[in-house]
């Protein structure tokens, strides 16, 4: 199976592992991630002000490409997923944004939110299936792992529709599938300090240490994430309480393809 894939700028540079291990694992599971042509940075944050149109256009370009090439767009970075999915929702449900964006883009055929945006975790669960992954595992992870959801995958839940925003389970199901022991802890859907860490490191330090301490208290050996900024904040401002790694690294390890790249 082939699927259009939007990597985003960070996955081409500082988060190469997140991308590389995802591709290797998908290949082992029978999915080819086809990087879309001429993708542009999504902007990393969804602009909520109603008069911000230009900052939404790069997402529309990628969505329109995917519409013409299979109808689905796979994302991996939490931020890209959040931006692209929310812009897609606007194109479908906000007539003013739809009108202005289409007016600017002058596409051959208007884009009205037709593309289905799928996060890599959703693909694992709903397209490949955790049962199949479980059968493909050759090195069970066998560690106590805390899923860190953060904000971008879950909220706003009315648009993201990723999982229950207060009590999500998809990453815990993933951990079980690769042979790990999921650790549920109170702070798993809390914010790491996000971009404010550039202005005030202290806020991120308070948030990141609280998150990692919460996971450690429940017995976790490590935390996994799908977000490069969460990884950076937790590693840099989390005082090394427990390690944070990308979820795709554990997947590649479990599938025995980590060193194939």
């Amino acid at each position: 199976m082939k699927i259009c894939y939007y990597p985003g700028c960070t996955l081409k540079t500082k988060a190469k592992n997140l991308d590389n291990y995802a591709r290797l694992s998908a290949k082992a599971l029978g999915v080819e991630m086809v990087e879309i042509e001429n993708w542009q940075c999504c902007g990393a944050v969804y602009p909520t002000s109603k008069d911000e149109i230009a900052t939404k256009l790069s997402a529309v370009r990628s969505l329109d490409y995917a519409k013409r090439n299979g109808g689905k767009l796979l994302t991996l970075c939490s931020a890209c997923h959040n931006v692209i999915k929310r812009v897609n929702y606007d194109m479908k449900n906000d007539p003013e944004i739809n009108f202005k964006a289409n007016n600017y883009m002058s596409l051959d055929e208007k884009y009205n939110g037709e593309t289905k945006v799928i996060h890599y975790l959703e693909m694992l669960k709903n397209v490949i299936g955790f049962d199949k992954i479980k059968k493909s595992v050759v090195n069970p992870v066998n560690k106590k792992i805390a899923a860190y959801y953060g904000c971008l995958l879950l909220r706003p839940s009315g648009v993201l529709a990723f999982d229950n925003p207060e009590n999500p389970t998809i990453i815990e199901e993933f951990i079980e599938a690769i042979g790990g022991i999921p650790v549920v802890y109170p702070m798993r859907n809390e914010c790491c300090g996000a971009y404010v860490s550039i202005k005030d490191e202290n806020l991120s330090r308070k948030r990141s240490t609280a998150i990692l301490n919460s996971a450690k208290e429940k017995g976790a050996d490590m935390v996994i994430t799908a977000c490069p900024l969460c990884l950076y904040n937790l590693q840099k401002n989390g005082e090394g309480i427990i390690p944070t790694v990308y979820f795709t690294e554990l997947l590649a390890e479990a599938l025995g393809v980590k060193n194939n790249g």
Partner: protein
Amino acid sequence: MDKREILENVVRICGTDVKRCMKCGKCSGRCPAFNEMDVKPHQFVSYLASGQIDKLLDSKAIWYCLSCMACVERCPRGVAPQGVVEAIRNTIAREQGKNGIKAEDIPPIIDDRIPQQLLVSAYRKYNK
């Protein structure tokens, strides 16, 4: 723009109907940056509803909102306090010389692990 025009513009771009607020305070109760904020999330909603735009334009809290959407998620009335914070921050940042971060402040904080995502998101949020 005069103050009345600024108020009208914020109402127009914030993307939420602040008159629906029933003042339960769940947004502020859930906010991870509550302690850092001089004006609290529920006050962004109530000040806008009562037209007290000056209090919002003077706030430092606009630079501490994490856009984590926790306030939006918890509101039982479908109000989006984050939308008001962002509308105020954009109103300020769009003025000449009022950006939240300066380019010359960036090089000293760059380390070899800093993700592009952090720089891009901070610039998108703080600078116009």
